[in-house]
């Protein structure tokens, strides 16, 4: 052999990150060549807060050959068409950030410019009326996007609200059936090669030693390998995303589940409501500097309509990420690599992204710095773009009813975000990039939803004569309203026992089933 091949892969930690990684590797890697082990302890709970997902998860499941309906049954899933943000731009406001686009671009000019032209001339119709996903969500309807790429009805996608612990169990079963070795135990020590610094062995409290060539750190906030062992520094973003506490509690179902997540801003953070088939996930996120834990717990419990199903679960965190996520022979996936609050359901997405990148760049041997550098470069690009998008939610506000909002509204945001905001304000241009989770429609949703209205629209929108534009917009609105009227209700779609494989193909996009 001309090199030292990787043969033994050790995943440290179960939970969503650990089991998603295990399932993907078990599916893709040749079991005659690789031995994959996962170490977890039943005594250590998982965070499992990220119960709202994004459409990309469908792509992950599809690649693993998972039946969508079976997955939904096993995880008590409901459909999700977007997130409703209330009280963000100002008290009393609400908008939905949909998994879909607005209207249709004309002459290569994005739709929102045409909408903006009407709006600036006094037409008060909300841009929501041009997004099918928003209209369907509000009407509590659901149906699969159209398979006809030319149809306006194909311009949205969907995700799920799931029980993340059940998803982890589902993937555990998937992995174990395929021969994954799961070792129960708590970690006592980690051994490194004194010369290279590579991790070589994990020692358990039982005395058992597990050797490996390549390690994947899914140990959550503890970041046992990447943080504690390899001393990779943590870059804090708490000055931009000051929330650092969350309290979570499930409650009984009080109504038919909504096909969207709720994110309701309060005086120093926000609250979530995630509807599952059998219960509702609730949580409150806040900044400890501005609020007392007890008050927040009381506020959380008072906002629940059903009965609490468990004791409240307190979480502490800090927004930020490890400066590198692949160091030596160790890759961190999930919370061990960084944390961004679940405002836009990015946690599971970031896990999935890291797994896909790792698979794409999976090394042949221990020392392939080019692959490591590329992995780190792509992961940080993704993290930073999501970070900017999250900061926008806090910064684009007129709220001045608390010290917290005053801070967020006036804080200095990253230059990369300020540039985007300024550009949009000037004439509605959204900085264009192709890689990343949130593209133009999402930026438009949050800008407009939180009160950033451009001073002007793209001048070339004037190429369409005014009457023609007004008529076109009217017929688009009518088409959407009518299409939504014909959709089945979300609950009836959920309760449909039809087990046929009738769901559309998945794609790595927030906005449709075609990539």
């Amino acid at each position: 052999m001309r090199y030292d091949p990787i043969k033994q892969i050790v995943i440290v930690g179960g939970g969503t990150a650990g089991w998603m990684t295990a399932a993907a590797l078990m599916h893709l890697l040749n079991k005659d060549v690789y031995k994959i082990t996962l170490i977890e302890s039943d005594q250590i709970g998982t965070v499992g807060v990220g119960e709202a997902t994004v459409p990309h998860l469908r792509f992950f499941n599809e690649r693993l050959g998972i039946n969508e309906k079976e997955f939904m049954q096993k995880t008590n899933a409901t459909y999700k068409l977007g997130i409703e943000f209330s009280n963000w731009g100002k008290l009393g406001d609400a908008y939905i950030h949909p998994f879909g686009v607005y209207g249709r671009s004309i002459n290569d000019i994005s739709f929102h410019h045409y909408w903006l032209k009407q709006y600036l001339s006094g037409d008060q119709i909300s841009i929501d009326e041009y997004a099918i996903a928003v209209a369907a969500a509000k009407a509590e309807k659901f149906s699969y996007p159209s398979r006809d790429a030319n149809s306006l009805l194909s311009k949205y996608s969907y995700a799920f609200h799931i029980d993340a612990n059940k998803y982890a169990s589902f993937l555990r079963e998937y992995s174990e059936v395929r021969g994954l070795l799961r070792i129960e135990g708590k970690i006592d020590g980690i051994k490194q090669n004194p010369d290279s610094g590579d991790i070589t062995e994990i020692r358990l409290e039982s005395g058992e030693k597990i050797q490996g060539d390549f390690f994947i750190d899914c140990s959550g906030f503890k970041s046992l390998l990447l943080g504690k062992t390899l001393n990779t520094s943590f870059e804090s973003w708490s000055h931009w995303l000051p929330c650092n506490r969350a309290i979570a509690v499930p409650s009984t179902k009080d109504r038919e589940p909504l096909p969207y997540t709720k994110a309701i801003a309060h005086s120093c953070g926000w609250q979530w409501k995630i509807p599952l088939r059998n219960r509702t996930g609730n949580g409150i996120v806040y900044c400890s500097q501005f609020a007392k834990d007890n008050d927040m717990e009381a506020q959380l419990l008072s906002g629940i309509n059903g009965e609490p199903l468990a004791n409240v679960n307190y979480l502490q965190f800090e927004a930020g990420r490890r400066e590198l996520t692949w160091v030596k022979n160790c890759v961190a996936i999930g919370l061990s690599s960084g944390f961004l609050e679940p405002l836009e359901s990015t946690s599971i997405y970031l896990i999935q992204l890291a797994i896909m990148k790792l698979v794409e760049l999976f090394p042949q041997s221990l020392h392939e710095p080019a692959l490591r550098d590329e992995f780190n470069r792509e992961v940080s690009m993704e993290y930073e773009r999501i970070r900017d998008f999250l900061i926008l939610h806090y910064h684009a506000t007129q709220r001045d009813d608390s010290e917290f909002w005053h801070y967020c509204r006036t804080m200095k945001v990253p230059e990369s975000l300020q540039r985007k905001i300024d550009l949009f304000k000037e004439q509605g241009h959204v900085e264009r990039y192709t890689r990343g989770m949130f593209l133009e429609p999402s930026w438009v949703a949050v800008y407009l939803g939180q009160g950033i209205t451009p001073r002007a629209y793209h001048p070339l929108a004037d190429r369409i004569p005014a009457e023609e534009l007004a008529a076109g917009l009217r017929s688009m609105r009518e088409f959407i309203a009518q299409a939504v009227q014909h959709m089945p209700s979300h609950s009836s779609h959920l309760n449909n026992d039809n087990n046929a494989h009738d769901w559309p193909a998945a794609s790595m996009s927030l906005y449709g089933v075609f990539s």
Partner: protein
Amino acid sequence: MSREMQNENTIKTIAIVGAGLTGWTIAAGLANGLRGMNVNILLIDDESVRDKYHATEATTPFAKYFHSVLGIHEKDFIKNTHAGYSLATEYCAWANSEQACCMPFSEHGFMMQDIEFSHFVMAQAEENFLQKILPENILSNYDNYSLSSVAAKLGRFRHPSQESSSLFSTLDYGYQIPCDYYAQYLQHYSISLGVELISAKLGDVVLSPITGSIESIQVDASSTEVVQHLKIEADFFIDGSGAQAWLMSKIGSDIFDPTPGIFANASVSIAIHEPTKIEPLTRLSLAPSGWRQHIYTPAVNETRYFFNDNDISYEQASEWLSEYTQAKSVDAIVLQEHSPKQRQQPWYKNCLAVGQSASYADVCVVGKLHLVQSAVLRFLSLFPAQCHNSLQQQEYNRLTCAEYTNIVDFHALHYQLAQSNESSFWKKVRASSVSERLAHRLYLLQARGSVPFYENETISSGMWSSFFFGNQIFDSHDSLPRYNPIVNSINPQWREQQLLKMKKMFTEAAETMPVYIEYLAAL
């Protein structure tokens, strides 16, 4: 609210300087993009201020998109400009002295189980190496895993199929265009859309004493016997004057070197009219102290020689080229080209530099016409609602800069991989350094055969890896295997069969395609 009501300060008149191919491409793009907007477009033609081109231009498939935006029908374009098609770029002994290889515009092979195709070929190469099988049968000619390449080599052509299940849907193409005919064609197009041509001798440029923006250009118009002094006023100006950057130099905007490294900085070319050789590809090959490019349009064949004038003189270069082409009666064109250089702010004050006035380049494969076409569309996508709109401007400059650095990286990769001769030029190239970004690209290509993702890339990742693998595949077995180990979960026999089958399919399909010259004649 109409545009006029949005703001009084909108662009109502645009003046373009330079009536070469650059100027007419800009005029055509704007005339179409600003239809119905009541914007006057003027083009000032001073014969001494035109962007200079060689006799021909080779494009990427982007030119098709540009035409579709302009509503130009391909048949009409091909007939009127005597342009031809190009399926690939062929490298003759570029990085591999053994064989020529084609780089198509479309992807090689097919992805299997979500894994990039090249990994399968590399896995097979590794397998054959371990079993000491000579790389002949299955591995030689990476380009045989592409229908475009096989067809190009056989001199066949047809349009891609719209049916995604058809093998012919994998074809993609650019054009080979005689520049003079094309400039005339775009002139006709522009004028029919209302562009006003002013033939005049350029004089002084009047700048605003406060902002430094251009207020007007004084010209001597000579439309009749009488010379007329005119003052051309406009809200916005575009410099299409080529490397001399006639307008930009008046308002002062800096130029910088975006990349380290030694490049050819000059070229000579010989064009042969009524050619005997018409092929659906362009060719690149190494030459003493530089490299050669061959373009084969149905009306003109052109051979260009790019060299560095620090190493050989124009006279030597011309002599060498005419000897090489054995051309008897030819028009030799000498052009001062430049190694990659870029204007810091191609959009500066109320003036936009497009073409050679924005960046000096005759970058292999992409071609300088591409930069003009993409600049026009980018400008339209960021068209300012007001004359002075610094944020749209900054965004335009940021994107332009990113586009150019990516293209220059690809250009520099050609130099890096050249299996060059011992001339002092190539020795200097070998000793020169590369940009950090290209170093990373090269690093990842070598380690994994993968192409890192960068925003605003003109060259597709398929072309990056095609160039890399096509030119220097399977040569170094002292390094790690360059493929994703995930491939190992696929049965090796099945893999080998798939590879063989693909090659066979592409060859058979190419043989059913029309002969290129006959196809052109039948259009």
